């Protein structure tokens, strides 16, 4: 998938994408927890549900592929395309970042008031889209499930994955009998497979404790069936054959 992302069509044929593959219980748990933290620290009510239920997917995935674009903020395409706003000389992007010698100062990360430090060159962002598209196409070809996520990408970015990039997208990959990234119902962050299994375990364990001493029960049962002490566990017929 990463190879497909690297060979995707790209504006001007200029390399722009970096990727990292992350797997393992601890790593995915860390990402999921970061997503849950961001759900609340971003102070955006619309994102709370999205970020929390997508955290479940980060846990359920077999691995997570991060794709980031390291040119979107630092090196705009300089073509006056107008996608960022239409000002001549890509002024919209340059004006809103600190610059020196016509170059955007990427070390200046102080101004961040939003999760991502925009504005970005939309041509580069589009190129990232091409790369993600190719990675997704490869996943589809390999018959594995995959979907692109803003939340996972943001968590990855904050945790230091694809650290040269200013915009990162998370692509969880799963090979399960059911695609874990679709068919999501309400309150999925609470009502999901893990919670359900845990609830079954909890209730089953409590319920089974209501039973009496199993040893006494079986003795009574076998006596009723006509068995005696040495032949306990056998039926009457089996005892006669001996």
């Amino acid at each position, binding site marked *: 998938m990463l190879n497909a992302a690297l060979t995707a069509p790209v504006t001007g044929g200029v390399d722009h994408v970096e990727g990292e593959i992350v797997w393992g219980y601890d790593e995915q748990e860390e990402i999921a927890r970061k997503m849950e933290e961001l759900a609340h620290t971003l102070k955006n009510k619309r994102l709370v549900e999205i970020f929390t239920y997508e955290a479940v997917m980060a846990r359920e995935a077999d691995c997570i592929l991060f794709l980031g674009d390291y040119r979107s903020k630092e090196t705009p395409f300089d073509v*006056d395309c107008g*996608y960022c706003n239409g000002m001549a000389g890509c002024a*919209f992007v340059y004006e809103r970042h600190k610059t020196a010698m016509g170059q955007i100062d990427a070390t200046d990360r102080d101004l961040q008031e939003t999760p991502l430090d*925009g504005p*970005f060159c939309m041509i580069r*962002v589009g190129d990232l889209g*091409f790369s993600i598209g190719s990675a997704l196409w490869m996943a589809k070809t390999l018959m594995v499930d995959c979907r692109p996520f803003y939340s996972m990408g943001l968590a990855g970015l904050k945790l230091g994955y694809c650290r040269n990039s200013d*915009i990162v997208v998370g692509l969880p990959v799963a090979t399960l009998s059911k695609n874990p990234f679709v068919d999501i119902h309400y309150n999925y962050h609470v009502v999901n497979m893990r919670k359900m299994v845990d609830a079954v375990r909890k209730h089953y364990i409590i319920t089974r404790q209501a039973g009496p001493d199993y040893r006494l029960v079986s003795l009574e049962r076998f006596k009723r069936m006509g068995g005696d002490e040495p032949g306990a566990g056998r039926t009457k017929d089996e005892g006669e054959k001996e």
Partner: protein
Amino acid sequence: MTMIDGRRHAHEGLLAAASQVLQAYYKAPQCTSRTKLLSMVVSGEELRPMVELVGALEDSLGREGAASVFFPLYMDYLCYKEALQRDDPPVVLILGANLMHSELGWNCGACGFKSCAEFNRFSKESGGMGLFGGGPSCAWKTIDFCIAVDYACAAAHLLNIENRVQATFGAVAYLLGYLEDASMVLTLPLGPIAELWYYNRPSMTRLATYQEWVKLMRQNYTLMFQMFSSNMHPWVKDDGPWWRKEHTDRDVVGVKKDEGLEAVIYEARGKLMEIAIGMRGQVQEIKQKKGLIG
């Protein structure tokens, strides 16, 4: 039972292939699941306004002028023109989306605004148009649109059809109003039935001589071909035995203002707009004839 020219038959299959490519385009996964994708299939005579626009630009600015100001566009134009001359024109997919409005409410800041509401307000009041399309754009919708375009490219690739996604003719389609509501438009020509038509560009080889290409490269890549730079006037190495050249004949790297160049570029861009506005009626007429607009 059948005897058809193979190349002709392959050419006629392009339209059927276009439907498969578009099926992939609309099936692409999205980050937002909310980006509305627009598209149009153009082939044959309906393609002419796009090619004729650049032709008119060439007539007005001269070959040299059109090629020097709009070089990538001119290169693609030659590919289209020669394909039309060979009677093997591509089936062009015009793909677009309106990225200038966001209902996401994510407030991520990738567009440069603190919130989606602020972005929408700015977009409505002072949204502008550049050389290729409109802005500002929502970054996540841009990603979604480009994922879909990539799906279309991948589908065309798997079908073994010559194709290349182009922003140049996307801009032409945008200016001519093929897709009214789109702010970003890209074109994906399928065909002609040839190899590397848009990459090695066989139509380009006759455009200039070897010496002219070398000159063009030297103009653009001087930094890579320069000599010792700390005398403050680094020489540029030439094609051939540059060391035998007289000192007076040598070129040096330097930065200087090209008086009047900006004026030429902006005049040419103005001309492009002028021609495009003049030709929009043609496209509207075609759309009306095809029943695409009332």
